[in-house]
């Protein structure tokens, strides 16, 4: 008996030892959901969603309400050996000011783990934070290790001592000593559950990433889709790259302001930024689609490659069928019949080209590991953005090269005079590809040739430049270097058109411009423009209630109005990146408008400045045929507002400056729109700074922008980036006629960036963008009525 009892006890012992010990005290459910808590992980570990739920489940029709916990596996993920969610970078290892940190939102305290274990029930705030930390860390650490590796190759020899770079580089040697590799030692903070509905944001002021949630499914957090985490962090990386040279300058001469990629609701710089951010996601998961989960729920996922099934028929990786510029700027793959002007949609051209460069490098340089090719693309992108964002105006280590005009005006140049667009970005990127990988077998023991670069860029419609502009834009040195010329045989798809092809709609009875003056509309616009800090300088004479705005569709004294030119494309090819400028520029002499600028307006008898004794071009400051080298700051040079005015004088009418009108009607200086007696040039009609330019994504052949953006025959809605806002002084005598001389250009333009009057077809020098040559001048006249 005793023996049997012992046997039974022994058997019971053997049998119970076969029970699973995972899941802590709870047995696993029949659905095999992992219990994710401290008892199931080792120190420093936790569990995260390694990808978004669609990918992990393999189910494209996953319900938004599904339990993401079912997607966890037994495998653990290394999180951190710290007791809070902080990560470090090279030279940034202070736990109180780490390289990056994750919190639930901006109100919360940091999550801490006393046992250094990071496993929490899926879907809880703690889980979301750990998961976000894991994915932010991936991107940041990839970026930093790649950057360090590249920097070492450029600036250090095999023994770690400084050396002369093997080629012209925009990466400064002081990058690490001045902490330019990470935004001056700021901590990147990510919020896994920010209080933003259907939204996410990057705030460059405090270097934070905010991941929101879906309005219709509040438990679905944007953080649950790692692509979104990578995308938002991508914007932070863009900021770092754009400001490397500004930060690394590190002295009393270092720029105070910082570079940005994108200023308006829609502009091409913003579109490029979005494309880079999408590519950042691809750099981790290497898939052809962005955000299958979150954006998929919203039916807004974006493809990153032509072979993605989301694309319409006719788009493929074939060189004739790429997602090309400018054709696909307004393309929405989820609803191809809908035309949309949005930086995310326009950004797809950039994301697709970046992915294609990866593919091409793998093919042409025999790179077998895709990660290696992605790293090369990131290195090229870092070179490109670091140069283009340089507010010290030096651009790279070639002493003869300059960019963004000069130190004093670089910010204004980047904002409006010569902002980053598809022309400047891809010209610079092509140059970097050629410089870094095009020789000395630096592309995995091969050379990535000029023809390779040009054929690929051309297949995207982005072979928009005539040469690689190695000599930069400086007034003295900008035409003295040797520039690599584009092989014209490679330009098959990129069609360049003369700037004369853009004009006001010439159709019979067509409008020349649209006017916005409804009181409620303009009050909301002003509230939004100032409340988003796009505009800050509004005349003291513009009353917030806009009492003069009468909504009659005309321009009346005292109003705040919006103007949008009714632009027409007079060619058989689409034009992209149409940019209208209304900032002050160099087109006057001695208070009189010059008529030597290409528009032959006005006539001498109508008050044009006398330029009969001038040479052309002139070297005398103040002449009509001389363009200011310093944005109006040198002696005898001044910039004048876009708009001037007609007055009666000696039985004839003359076109004169607004200051002349002020003198004629004896208006006191302090009553000018600026409210400042010393600023009377724009006394009566003034473009709001910040809203003094307009952008139009694309204009189809032989039609207008309005028709291009029309859906189902409905008139297009104008967003703020399509409208130039003007203050109209209440002191304008009714019946006064104004002429606004707008400067217009577009991106696939043969003579907006290239000086076609030169045999070498070099780019215009930077200072020339203060004048008329790179632009099509469009004069718009209107009378201010009572």
């Amino acid at each position: 008996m005793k023996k049997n009892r012992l046997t039974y006890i022994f058997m019971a012992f053997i049998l119970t030892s076969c029970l699973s010990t995972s899941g802590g005290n709870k047995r696993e459910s029949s659905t095999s959901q992992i219990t994710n808590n401290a008892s199931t992980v080792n120190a420093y570990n936790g569990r995260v969603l390694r990808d978004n739920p669609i990918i992990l489940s393999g189910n494209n029709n996953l319900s938004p309400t599904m339990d993401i916990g079912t997607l966890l596996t037994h495998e653990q993920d290394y999180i951190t050996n710290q007791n809070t969610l902080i990560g470090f970078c090279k030279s940034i290892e202070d736990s109180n000011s780490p390289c990056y940190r994750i919190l639930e939102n901006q109100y919360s305290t940091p999550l801490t783990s006393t046992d250094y274990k990071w496993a929490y029930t899926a879907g809880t705030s703690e889980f979301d934070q750990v998961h976000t930390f894991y994915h932010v860390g991936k991107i940041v650490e990839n970026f930093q290790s790649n950057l360090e590796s590249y920097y070492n190759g450029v600036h250090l020899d095999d023994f770690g001592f400084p050396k002369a770079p093997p080629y012209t580089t925009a990466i400064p040697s002081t990058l690490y000593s001045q902490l330019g590799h990470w935004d001056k030692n700021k901590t990147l903070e990510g919020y896994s559950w920010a209080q933003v509905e259907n939204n996410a944001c990057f705030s460059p002021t405090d270097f934070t990433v905010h991941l929101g949630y879906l309005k219709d499914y509040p438990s679905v957090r944007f953080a649950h889709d790692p692509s979104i985490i990578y995308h938002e962090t991508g914007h932070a990386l863009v900021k770092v790259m754009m400001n490397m040279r500004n930060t690394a300058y590190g002295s009393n001469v270092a720029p105070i302001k910082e570079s940005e990629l994108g200023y308006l609701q829609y502009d091409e710089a913003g579109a490029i930024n979005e494309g880079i951010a999408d590519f950042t996601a691809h750099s981790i998961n290497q898939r052809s689609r962005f955000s299958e989960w979150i954006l998929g729920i919203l039916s807004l996922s974006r493809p990153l490659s032509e072979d993605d099934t989301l694309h319409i028929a006719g788009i493929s990786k074939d060189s004739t069928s790429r997602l090309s510029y400018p054709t696909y700027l307004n393309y929405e793959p989820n609803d191809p019949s809908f035309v949309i002007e949005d930086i995310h949609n326009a950004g797809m051209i950039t994301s697709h080209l970046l992915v294609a460069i990866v593919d091409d490098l793998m093919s042409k340089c025999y790179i077998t590991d895709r990660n290696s090719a992605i790293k090369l693309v990131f290195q090229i992108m870092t070179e490109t953005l670091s140069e283009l964002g340089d507010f010290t105006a030096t651009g790279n280590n070639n002493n003869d090269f300059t960019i963004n005009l000069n130190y004093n005006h670089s910010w204004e140049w980047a904002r409006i005079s010569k902002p980053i667009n598809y022309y400047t970005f891809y010209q610079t990127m092509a140059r970097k590809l050629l410089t870094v990988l095009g020789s000395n077998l630096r592309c995995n023991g091969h050379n990535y040739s000029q023809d390779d670069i040009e054929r690929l860029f051309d297949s995207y419609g982005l072979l928009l430049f005539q040469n690689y502009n190695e000599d930069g834009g400086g007034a003295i040195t900008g035409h003295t270097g040797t520039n690599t010329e584009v092989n014209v045989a490679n330009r098959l798809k990129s069609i360049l058109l003369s700037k004369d092809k853009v004009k006001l709609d010439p159709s019979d009875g067509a409008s020349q411009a649209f006017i916005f003056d409804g009181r409620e509309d303009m009050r909301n616009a002003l509230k939004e423009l100032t409340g988003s800090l796009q505009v800050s300088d509004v005349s003291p004479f513009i009353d917030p209630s806009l009492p003069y705005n009468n909504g009659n569709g005309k321009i009346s004294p005292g109003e705040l109005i919006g103007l949008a030119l009714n632009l027409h494309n007079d060619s058989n090819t689409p034009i992209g990146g149409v940019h209208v400028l209304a900032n002050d520029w160099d087109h006057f002499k001695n208070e009189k408008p010059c008529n030597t600028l290409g528009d032959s307006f006005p006539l001498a008898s109508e008050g044009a400045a006398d330029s009969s004794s001038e040479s052309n071009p002139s070297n005398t400051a103040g002449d009509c045929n001389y363009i200011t080298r310093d944005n109006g700051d040198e002696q005898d040079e001044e910039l004048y507002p876009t708009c001037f005015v007609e007055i009666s004088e000696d039985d004839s009418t003359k076109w004169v400056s607004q200051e002349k009108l002020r003198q004629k009607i004896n208006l006191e200086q302090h009553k000018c729109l600026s409210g400042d007696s010393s600023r009377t040039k724009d006394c009566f009609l003034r473009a709001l700074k910040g809203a003094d330019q307009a952008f139009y994504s694309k204009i189809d052949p032989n039609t207008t922008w309005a028709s291009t953006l029309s859906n189902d025959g409905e008139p297009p809605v104008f967003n703020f980036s399509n409208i130039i806002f003007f203050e109209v002084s209440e002191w304008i005598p009714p019946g006064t006629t104004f002429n606004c001389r707008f400067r217009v250009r577009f991106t696939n333009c043969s003579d907006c960036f290239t000086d076609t009057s030169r045999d070498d077809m070099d780019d215009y020098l930077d200072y020339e963008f203060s004048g008329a040559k790179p632009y099509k001048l469009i004069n718009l006249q209107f009378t201010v009525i009572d």
Partner: protein
Amino acid sequence: MKKFIIFLLFIICGLIVWQTTRSPKDISVSEENDWRTYQKTEKKVSSHPSTKDELDKINVRKKENTKKRMPASKKDTFNGRTINADNPDKYNYKTGNFQISNKENPDWKDTLASDLLRFQDSTTKILIKEEESFVIIRQGTGRLVEKVVITYLHNHGKKNAAHALVDSETGKIITIWNRTRYENFIPTKSGMLPKGQI
């Protein structure tokens, strides 16, 4: 005596618990003084030192006094203001021999806030933080400016922030940069329609 010791132990324990669990949201006095909130009330703009709640909404965290890694170079100053010069070889600002075109006005922040709130309704608040004071020297002439962070707190919960350079006398904004960037994943199909045409 025994009761006294127990009471003392209780106090000590309480202090230990309070110290270790003190919320990092606590802002030091000096940090608080850096921020000021402005809001429209009827027809004037009132201000107060930013409250803890307001600072939480814009993510102001307590900064520990630790040795943070700083960039290698140190910048020259003038009367406590960092010098930012365009051509130090030509204009030797280190001698202090340059003209200054404006003067410091203690009310510059109030003027700035009034300007910023002009077109907002009474539910919108502005928080302004001074980051650094500069004297910007261009072609030999200096200008006193302030680098600030401006944050709009709108009633719908959205915040918009940016850096700005502000004239230290007039409170006028010279430049703005680093504006908050919202994705707005769901594209808006609304906008403005013209009222007329030329």
